[in-house]
C-alpha cells in the first residue's frame, strides 16, 4: 500500500507544539522515506510523545501546532479533526505509550480489535473476529480465544501492549508511530514483539517512527535516529554513526548511562553513570543550548546563543561538538 509518488512517508517541517503558555516542541524537522525507519530518543519530557501526538492530531486540549506535517499528499497540520480521524488507523496509526489508558476499560479487548478492523476495512463482524484472533496469535498471545473475551484489567501489561500493536498493524498503514511499544514487556517477549513488529512493518512496506528511550532497540530496528532534548532535535543521522561517534554531549551522556552487564562491580557498590541534573521545566528553559546546565563542555556561548542543527549526513546542534576519532588522530 505505497502511494504512487516517491514522496516521503512523512515530512515534518519546523513543527512547534504549544499551549500558548509553554512550548513543548520547538521547531522540529525530519523526514522518513517510504518504508524507512526512524528512531526518536530523548530525555523524559523532551517532547517525543507531543511530537507523535501532533502528527496524529491527538494533542491534549488546549495544545496546537505550527509548521507542516506532510503525509500522503496532504498537510495533516491543516486537516480538520474529522478528516484526520478517518486517517487514523488507516494510513497512519499509533501504538501508545500507555496501553491501559488507551484501551477502553469497559469493553472486551476482542471487541476493540475487531472494531478497528471493521471500522477501516468494512468486513463483517465474524471475519473481523477471525482476523483479530489471527493477529493475536501472530503476536504470540496465549489463549487468544479466551483473551478476546477479557477486559483490559484482566490481562498482564505485556499482553495489553501486544494487543495495542496488533490493533495498530490491523490496517496496513503507510506509517506506524510506536511510542515506547515494548517498555511493559519482559526481554523475551520484547524481542519476540520487536521481531514481529520488524517483520510486519517490512511485509507491509510501512514506514516506522519508533519512540523509545531504549538505545539498543533503536540500534536493532531503525536506520536513522533523532535525539531530542528540551523540545528540539539536537542530533540526527544514521544510527551507526550517531551511536558510534556522537558529536553532541547529550547523546554521549545517554550512551554512557546505558547499563550493561559488564560494567558492574560485583560488590553492589557500583554507581551507574548518570547525567547530573534534570531536564529543565518548559516554563524555565535556559537561554542558548537547552542542555547547557548539564553539559560538561558548556561555555558562555552555549549559555547565550542557541546552536542550530548543522551537518551533512550526521547533523548536530552543538557549539563544541565532540571531536571525531579521525580529527583527534590528526591533532
Amino acid at each position, binding site marked *: 500500500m505505497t502511494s504512487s509518488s516517491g514522496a516521503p512517508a512523512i515530512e515534518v517541517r519546523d513543527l512547534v507544539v504549544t499551549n500558548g503558555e509553554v512550548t513543548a516542541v520547538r521547531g522540529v524537522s525530519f523526514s522518513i522515506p517510504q518504508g524507512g525507519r526512524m528512531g526518536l530518543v530523548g530525555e523524559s519530557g523532551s517532547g517525543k510523545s507531543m511530537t507523535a501526538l501532533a502528527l496524529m492530531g491527538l494533542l491534549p486540549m488546549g495544545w496546537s501546532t505550527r509548521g507542516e506535517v506532510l503525509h500522503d499528499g496532504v498537510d495533516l497540520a491543516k486537516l480538520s479533526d474529522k478528516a484526520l480521524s478517518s486517517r487514523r488507523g488507516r494510513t497512519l496509526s499509533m501504538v501508545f505509550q500507555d496501553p491501559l489508558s488507551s484501551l477502553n476499560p469497559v469493553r472486551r479487548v476482542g471487541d476493540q480489535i475487531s472494531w478497528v478492523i471493521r471500522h477501516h476495512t468494512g468486513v463483517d463482524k465474524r471475519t473481523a473476529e477471525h482476523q483479530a484472533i489471527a493477529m493475536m496469535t501472530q503476536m504470540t498471545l496465549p489463549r487468544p480465544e479466551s483473551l478476546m473475551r477479557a477486559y483490559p484489567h484482566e490481562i498482564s501489561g505485556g499482553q495489553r501492549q501486544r494487543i495495542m500493536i496488533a490493533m495498530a498493524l490491523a490496517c496496513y498503514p503507510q506509517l506506524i508511530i510506536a511510542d515506547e511499544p515494548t517498555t*511493559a514487556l519482559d526481554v523475551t517477549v520484547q524481542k519476540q514483539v520487536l521481531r514481529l513488529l520488524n517483520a510486519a512493518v517490512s511485509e507491509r512496506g510501512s514506514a516506522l517512527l519508533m519512540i523509545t528511550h531504549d538505545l539498543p532497540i533503536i*540500534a536493532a530496528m531503525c536506520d536513522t535516529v533523532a535525539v531530542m532534548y528540551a523540545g528540539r532535535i539536537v542530533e540526527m543521522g544514521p544510527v551507526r554513526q550517531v551511536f558510534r561517534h556522537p558529536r553532541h554531549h547529550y547523546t554521549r551522556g545517554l550512551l554512557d548511562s546505558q547499563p550493561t552487564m559488564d560494567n558492574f562491580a560485583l560488590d553492589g557498590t557500583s554507581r551507574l553513570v548518570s547525567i547530573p541534573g534534570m531536564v529543565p521545566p518548559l516554563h524555565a528553559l535556559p537561554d542558548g543550548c537547552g542542555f547547557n546546565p548539564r553539559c560538561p563542555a558548556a561555555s558562555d556561548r552555549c549559555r547565550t546563543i542557541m546552536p542550530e542543527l548543522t551537518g551533512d549526513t550526521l547533523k548536530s546542534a552543538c557549539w563544541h561538538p565532540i571531536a571525531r576519532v579521525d580529527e583527534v588522530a590528526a591533532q
Partner: protein
Amino acid sequence: MNVSPFPGDSRPLLEVRQLNHAYPLRRHKLFEPRSVLKVLQGVDFAVRRGEAVGLVGESGSGKTTLSRMLTGVEKPHDGHVLYDGSDVWSGTPEQRQLFRRSVQVVLQNPRSSLDPRMRVGTSLLEPLRSLKIEGDHAARVLEVLDQVGLTKSAMERFPHEFSGGQLQRIAIARALMPGPKVLIADEPVSALDVSIQAQVLNLLKDLVRDLGLGLVFIAHDLSVVTYTTSKVYVMSSGKIVEVGKPLDLFRAPKAEATQNLVAAILTVELGLSGKAFA
C-alpha cells in the same frame, strides 16, 4: 561479599510461604466448564531489612500478582503472607495497620496511579490521611521531595503537567510518605529514559542503604536488576524456578526461563551488528 548495612538482620521482614492463587478463565463458549489459570503455585519469597531483591520473569508469569499479595491488596487462595513474623491475614487490626503502612508500592505506570484531578502536593499527603498518620505533614512532604530530588514547586502542579519520568519520582515520593520499611517497585524505571533511569536506580539504591529499606524490584531488564539488587528470584508460569545472586544467575543460568531471559538481552552493539533478531 555481604554489603548489607544490617548484616545481623537475617530474619525476613516481609515473607510469603507456599502461596497459591488462581483466576477463573473466561469461557469462550457458554456451556464450557469453567477452568482456572493457576497464577501462583507454591511460591516462597522473602525480603529483609536493607536488602534489595529482584523479581524477574516473562510477561504473564505472575510477578504483578505476587506483588499484589505482598502489599495485601489481594488475599491469596492459600498460603501465608507474613510481615515481621506475623500472618497479615489472621493478625490483629493493629498488626494489619502496621503492615499497611510499612509496605508501600511504586507501580508500573505512574500516570494511572496518580489521581489526575489532585495537585501533586495533595496526592503526596493522601497516604498519610488514609493511613491516619499524625505529625508534621508539610515537613514530611518537603523531606521526601528532597529525597527523590524534586523541588517543592512540584507540589502545586497536576500530574498532566509532568512527563512520565518526572511522574515516577513523584510516585516514589508518595510511596515514601508513610515511612515504609519495604518498598515494592513494579517496573519502576521501564518508562524512563536511560539518563534518568540511572538516577532513579541510584536513588533506590541509596534509599535501601540509607533508610535500611527492603526493596522488591520487579523488572524485565536484567542488567537493571543486576545493578540494583543482591538477590534475584526468577518466576515462570507462577512458580519460582531459580534464586541466586544476580551475576551468578546471569552468567550461568540453570533454569530454562532464566536462560531465555539471558539470551534475549539486547545491547547497542548487538543491535548495530544487525544480528539482534537472528
